[in-house]
Structures are given as structure tokens and as C-alpha cells.
């Protein structure tokens, strides 16, 4: 039975949701509205480098100062369109590669004897705890023309001359697959581990070849994990900055990198904000789907 509670206690108890709610509202939601506002303003040579578009009490001026100029720049300059398309393409190909690499690992983990499973999960998570920047940095030494991979392959006689991998799109794929692998493997493992093996046995008994049982039973049952893992990799990969910047070449266009250079090199904050809004528009649908999948997954786990 719920005991009758006095007003101060009710107030104290309502602080539990109120404090994090207000925090996220202030530091997550409000900043977005500001990005939106600044994306509609003009750059200026000042500190901060944009024209203020809101003065308290000046409602008419507020609307006059807004225009879509920055978005016109985005649509008229091919650079942004190709950066957008190439980000989506690189993220999509990386997600497919992650599925191809991650699925066999997650599957094997789910089939491992139970006493080893938590160790395997810990081993997948451990690299994620070590610095992202450092893990990407490690690949520079491996992929360089005179790096460890080329030294090894040359010594084995597999290749006659060093492969040029660093500063190409291939290096970006390697980097993304490497950095995001735990995000793909863990949701896959979570669904595969719960799978009922008797279904596969039944299929086998009824004469279904293993590949067919895999496509008609394992894959559909693993679908929640496939969707969660793919979104968890695809969404941040579209806006990735560090990996294309350190491993990619100058021709590797990605929208996150573009935002970074508008902000830090060109100091055009309004245009950078417009790029952020563009990136957000691309990602809003995947993010909403991800939120639904994730909150449903958490709730069914209980």
C-alpha cells in the first residue's frame, strides 16, 4: 500500500525526474534551438563571429534578421551535397562491413560454453574503454607506406611494393570497422544468445541445409539486434570526424569534417550551424527509430 505522503515529501520526490530533465533540457535541447537560430543568421567579423539575431524585446528585428542564406550556400555549392552523399555512402558501406565482420563473432560468442561468455563480452568491451583517438592513432603506424602491415606483407613476399592504404577511403573503412565493432557485436550477441537452438535442430531434422536454416531462422530472429547494431554504427559514422581526418585523404569528403573546417578554419559559425542542421535532418529518422528500438529493448528485458 502506498503510504499517504505529505507535500514536502512529494516535492522532494518530484525532484528525481525534474533535475535530470531540466539539465538535459538546458544543455541538450536549448543548444539545438540556438544552432537552428544561428544557422539563419549572417556571419560577422566580431566576437562571437555572427550577427546577433535576437535582442530582448526586438521581435520584429528578430524575424528580419533571419534568412535562409546559409542554406542557399549549402544547396548551391556542390561541396556540401557531395560531402553529404559521400558521408552517407561511407557510413552505409561501413555498416555493412561491420555486420559482415561482427555477425560471425557475435554468433560464435553466443555458441561458446556459458562459463566463457561473460569473459568474451568483457573482452569485446575492453578496447572500447581505451581511448578512441589512440586506437585510431595506432592504425596510422600500421597502415603507413613504411608501416607495420606493409613491412609484414613485404617480408612474407605477398606484395612486391608497399600498398598505399593510409589517406585513402579504405583506411577510413578499416578505422570505422575497428572503432565501432563493439557497438555492432554487443546488440547482435544479446539477441543471438537468447535464441532457441531447438528451432535450428528442427529445421535440420526436417532436411533444411544449414545456410537455409541460417537465412530463414537465425537472421529473422536476430533482426532486433541487427537493426540496433546497424543504427548504433550508422548514425555516429555519418558525422564522424576523427577517423576521416586522421586516416582518410584530403579527397575523403565527410560532412562532420566539413562542419569542423567551417568552424575552426573558416570561422564561419552560421554556416557551420547550417551544416549541423543538414546533418541532423539526415539523421533524424534513424535517431527516432533507434530511440524506439532501444527503449522497447530495455523495457522487454525487464
Amino acid at each position: 500500500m502506498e503510504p499517504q505522503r505529505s507535500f514536502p515529501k512529494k516535492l522532494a520526490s518530484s525532484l528525481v525526474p525534474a533535475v535530470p530533465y531540466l539539465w538535459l533540457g538546458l544543455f541538450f535541447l536549448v543548444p539545438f534551438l540556438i544552432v537552428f537560430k544561428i544557422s539563419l543568421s549572417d556571419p560577422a567579423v566580431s566576437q562571437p563571429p555572427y550577427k546577433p539575431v535576437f535582442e530582448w524585446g526586438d521581435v520584429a528585428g528578430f524575424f528580419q534578421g533571419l534568412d535562409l542564406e546559409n542554406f542557399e550556400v549549402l544547396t548551391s555549392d556542390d561541396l556540401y551535397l557531395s560531402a553529404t552523399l559521400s558521408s552517407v555512402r561511407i557510413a552505409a558501406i561501413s555498416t555493412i562491413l561491420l555486420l559482415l565482420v561482427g555477425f560471425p563473432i557475435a554468433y560464435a560468442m553466443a555458441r561458446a560454453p556459458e562459463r566463457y561468455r561473460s569473459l568474451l563480452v568483457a573482452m569485446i568491451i575492453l578496447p572500447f574503454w581505451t581511448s578512441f583517438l589512440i586506437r585510431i592513432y595506432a592504425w596510422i603506424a600500421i597502415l603507413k607506406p613504411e608501416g607495420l602491415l606493409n613491412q609484414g606483407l613485404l617480408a612474407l613476399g605477398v606484395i612486391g611494393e608497399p600498398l598505399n592504404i593510409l589517406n585513402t577511403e579504405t583506411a577510413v573503412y578499416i578505422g570505422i570497422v575497428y572503432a565501432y565493432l563493439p557497438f555492432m557485436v554487443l546488440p547482435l550477441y544479446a539477441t543471438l544468445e537468447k535464441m532457441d537452438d531447438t528451432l535450428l535442430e528442427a529445421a535440420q531434422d526436417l532436411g533444411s541445409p544449414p545456410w537455409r536454416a541460417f537465412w530463414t531462422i537465425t537472421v529473422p530472429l536476430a533482426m532486433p539486434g541487427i537493426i540496433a547494431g546497424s543504427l548504433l554504427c550508422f548514425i555516429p559514422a555519418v558525422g564522424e570526424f576523427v577517423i576521416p581526418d586522421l586516416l582518410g585523404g584530403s579527397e575523403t569528403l565527410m560532412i562532420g569534417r566539413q562542419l569542423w573546417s567551417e568552424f575552426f578554419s573558416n570561422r564561419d559559425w552560421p554556416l557551420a550551424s547550417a551544416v549541423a542542421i543538414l546533418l541532423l535532418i539526415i539523421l533524424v529518422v534513424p535517431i527516432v527509430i533507434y530511440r524506439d528500438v532501444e527503449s522497447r529493448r530495455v523495457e522487454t528485458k525487464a
Partner: protein
Amino acid sequence: MNRRLSLFNVTSLVIGFAFLYLPILLLVVYSFNASRLVTVWGGFSTQWYVALFRNEALMEAAWVTLRIALLSASLATVLGTLAALALTRYGRFFGRTLFTGMVYAPMVMPEVITGLSLLLFFVAIGLDRGFWTITLAHTTLTMCFVTVVVQSRLMTFDRSLEEAAMDLGAPPLRTFFSVTLPLIAPSIVAGFLLAFTLSLDDLVIASFNTGPGATTLPIRIYSQVRLGLSPEVNAASAILIGIVTLGVVTATLLSKRSLLREEPNAH
């Protein structure tokens, strides 16, 4: 049910883990390289560790990073735990959909967007960029991770223990501190460690929100890496990897112990 590992399964595991661990291992090995050329082995040496501790810029950055990480992880742990309690114990409150959206979105949101939007916010409210802006930014990002970690523990939690305490006359706050909190403590510790390492690691959000005197280690490492590989960065990385490994192993042992302690009550 008899699950057996096929040769294919074992091969996937071996290749998968080799792929995950080899680069890190090589980095640690080459941090003991005597040669200045990062990819040529010139014998064993600890000179880069000595050089690292003499490099004041790097040490200063490490100190700033550590302070930001400790402070933001502590704040994030409190906020994240409250958010997890709100999501699991408060049913359907006003604006719950927006709330879950705000908890899940920052985790997948590209860092460039989060970094830029927070910076513009801090400029708009007139807060000088530096130590505090990075701390606030990190708190906001990492509290969402704490929420998810604590929330998943709260959902698998045996509520009859709380009910028993209440039936025996313990007021809600007392029940929380003497029953709920000890039981979810391992997940709170795990959430804190996760928040701490995320803050330690962050380059993008820190770069947007940094100011004079608040250069963090990732920002410093990034600017050095852009100039070319440096053996000192290898040494710094190896130390960070060592600290993190130690932390994770400790956390795993802690949660194992608390699980064992819980076991008799589980049924």
C-alpha cells in the same frame, strides 16, 4: 542444450579478437622502442616515458583532463542515476517521451553537432570557454550513458526487497539508501567509470568548448599526431591503456563480488 563451437566459430573469434587487440598491443610494444622512427624497431628502451614525464605541456594537459573527467563523471553519475530512477520508478510522467529522447539521442548524436551546439549555447549565455564549459559539456553527454547502465540494473532488480523494507515501516528515502542504493551500487560504479573514460577520451566536444588554459590530453595528442607520429604519444597512450585496463579489471571483479553476495537472495 548442447552448443558446440565449430571450427568456423573458433576462427571468427580468434581473428576478431586479434583484429581488436593487435593494434593496441603493437602500440604498447612500440612505446618501448629505442628508435625515434615509430615503425622501426631499435631495441628496448624506456626513454620515451622519461621524455613524457619531462614534457610539461603533456603533463599539464593530463592534469586538466583528469580534473575534468573526475568532476564531470561525478556530476554525471548523480544526474544519470536520478534519470534512471525517473525512467524506471515514475511510470508515465509528463513529457516522458521527450525525456527518453533526450537520454538516447546524445549517445548516437555525432559529436560535432553536440560540440557545436553546446559551444553556441555557452557563447549565448556569456560563459567563458574553458575548464567549466568542457566539464558541463562532458557531464551532459556522459550522464546519458550512466542512465542506461543504471536503468538496466534497476529493471532486473527484485522489487520485493524494497517492498519488504517499506512494509517494515522504513520511509521511502531510508528504503532507498539502505536497500536500493547498495543493490544498484555496482552499476553506479560502472556508470561512473564509463563516464570517466568517455570524458578522458573525448576530442571533438572538448575541442569546440575549450578555451585558454584548458587544453586536454586528447586535444594535445591530436595536435601532435597531425604533425606526425611521436614516440612520446605512444608512451602516453600505453600509460592510458594500462590505467584503463586496471580500472576495467577492478570494476569487473567488484561486480563479480557483488553478484556473488547477491546470489543467496536471488530466489
